[in-house]
């Protein structure tokens, strides 16, 4: 592996031509190449400047949030090595490895649809829109497991306000990057790509809805949705779109990817609800990663403050 990597890099690539022709210096160049051979992957990092080194960099000035739970935080290793991120792999351990070289800069987010002014925003300008908060949220997967994650971001409403949606806008749609070369999972049609998710406007404006770019005090790891994702703690995990490249405001309800995949199993709302089973398994309980016994699943994943958004709605039909 190491040898193969090194063989890809010819010494002419790292040694200027003039040196290359000078025998003595050529030997020096060869020595550098030799050292580089030993360094293996390190040289590749240098040789490809596009490689992202943002994931894991520290975020300054993070404030605490009243929305944080005091429950024990899931270990970093579990949250970064147990990922449902089908763009990379359907295997939960896959994304950690396959997303390693995912480029998260430069990164633009298209804001369009029913807005006063369509724009392409740089992700770094979005991140600076408001001050970062740490939100320790419960995160419940539709598959019946849960984690507690210290996300970093700010309320999605901050972005929505700045996007200036028109009065006609009733929904927000989020689209994940579609790039088969970087996201090998997209080479297979397990889902319809690109991944699309959506929210009703009032859901998007709810203070709990988080626009997220970090976790554990650092920039988001690639396998957790870098550089920009949303986190909706009262909904099943699949609603929280990752690696967002487009935010579109619409009048009609967006068609979300899992709903296309199997409409009878995954609806538009996907609120955590212990009383409404997934057709193939019960949602009454969940296994918190790291725990042996299962714990009861709470309505809206314990975030009762969102209940008023759905008053009068039949949550059995609007699953």
């Amino acid at each position, binding site marked *: 592996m190491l040898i193969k990597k090194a063989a890809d890099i010819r010494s002419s690539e790292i040694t200027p031509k003039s040196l290359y022709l000078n025998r003595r210096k050529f030997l020096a160049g060869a020595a550098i190449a030799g050292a580089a051979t030993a360094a293996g992957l390190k040289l590749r990092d240098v040789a490809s400047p596009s490689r992202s080194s943002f994931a894991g960099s520290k975020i300054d000035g993070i404030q605490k949030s009243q929305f944080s739970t005091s429950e024990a935080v899931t270990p970093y290793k579990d949250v970064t090595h147990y990922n449902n991120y089908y763009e990379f792999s359907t295997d939960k351990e896959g994304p950690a490895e396959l997303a390693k070289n995912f480029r998260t800069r430069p990164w633009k987010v298209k804001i369009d649809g029913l807005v006063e002014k369509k724009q392409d925003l740089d992700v770094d300008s979005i991140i600076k829109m408001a001050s970062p908060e740490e939100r320790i949220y419960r995160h419940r997967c539709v598959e019946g*497991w849960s984690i507690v994650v210290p996300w970093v971001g700010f309320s999605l409403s901050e972005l929505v306000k700045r996007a200036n949606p028109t009065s006609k806008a009733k929904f927000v749609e989020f689209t994940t990057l579609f790039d088969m070369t970087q996201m090998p999972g997209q080479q297979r049609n397990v889902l319809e790509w690109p991944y699309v998710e959506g929210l009703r406007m009032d859901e998007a404006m709810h203070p709990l809805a988080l626009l997220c770019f970090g976790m554990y005090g650092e920039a988001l790891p690639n396998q957790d949705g870098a550089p920009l994702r949303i986190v909706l703690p009262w909904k099943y995990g699949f609603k929280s779109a990752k690696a967002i490249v487009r935010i579109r405001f619409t009048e009609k309800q967006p068609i979300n990817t899992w709903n296309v995949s199997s409409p009878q199993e995954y609806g538009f709302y996907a609120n955590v609800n212990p009383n409404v089973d997934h057709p*193939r*398994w019960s949602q009454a309980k969940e296994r918190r990663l790291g725990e*042996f016994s299962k714990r009861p699943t709470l309505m809206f994943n314990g975030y009762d403050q969102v209940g008023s958004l759905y008053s009068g709605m039949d949550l059995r039909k609007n699953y």
Partner: protein
Amino acid sequence: MLRYFKPIVFLACLVPVGRLAWRGFHSDLGANPIEAITHGTGDWTLILLLVTLSITPVRKFTRQYWLINFRRMIGLFAFFYGFLHLMTYVWLDKFFDVHEMIADIAKRRFITAGLTAFTLMIPLALTSTKWSIRKLGGKRWQVLHRLIYFSATAGVIHYIWLVKADLKKPLEYATILGVLLLARAGLWLASRNAVDRKPEFSEVGSGR
């Protein structure tokens, strides 16, 4: 030769469960160890069922008739892994909650299929002894043990029905099962033709 091979195959069949136990004790089963155990035991049940099913066609096509000596052992190991797999559900998933399990079996077709697959293996495991073969008689024993086709089919369907979107792995099992069942059908047809022809030869031979 067999004297040495049998213990080797026996130990090889224990490797997957040994590995799971080893990794379990060393916290090396990932973020969700119980899921890893469930998937691991389920996979090996199907793999060993398919290996068991492949022995007859393989020994006939390759004329390595001695392979029959491993069929019972591997079949019983399939049952063993199936039992472990069932126990992960009964214990680690449902914590012996009978009401929940009954509701599950009735409501969730992948559970129904999985339980069917396991239930069909029980009579096979129980009648795996030489004594049973003698008691039942070879013909009847053989008919009974054709239940393995249904068990394996139910097992593969169980897997197909439980995955969320990625059908690759269950369809790999389904393909192998399909090939093995076709091989059986081929062997059966060939043997039927052979049987059909036999009387002619014997007639000629007896000079009647």
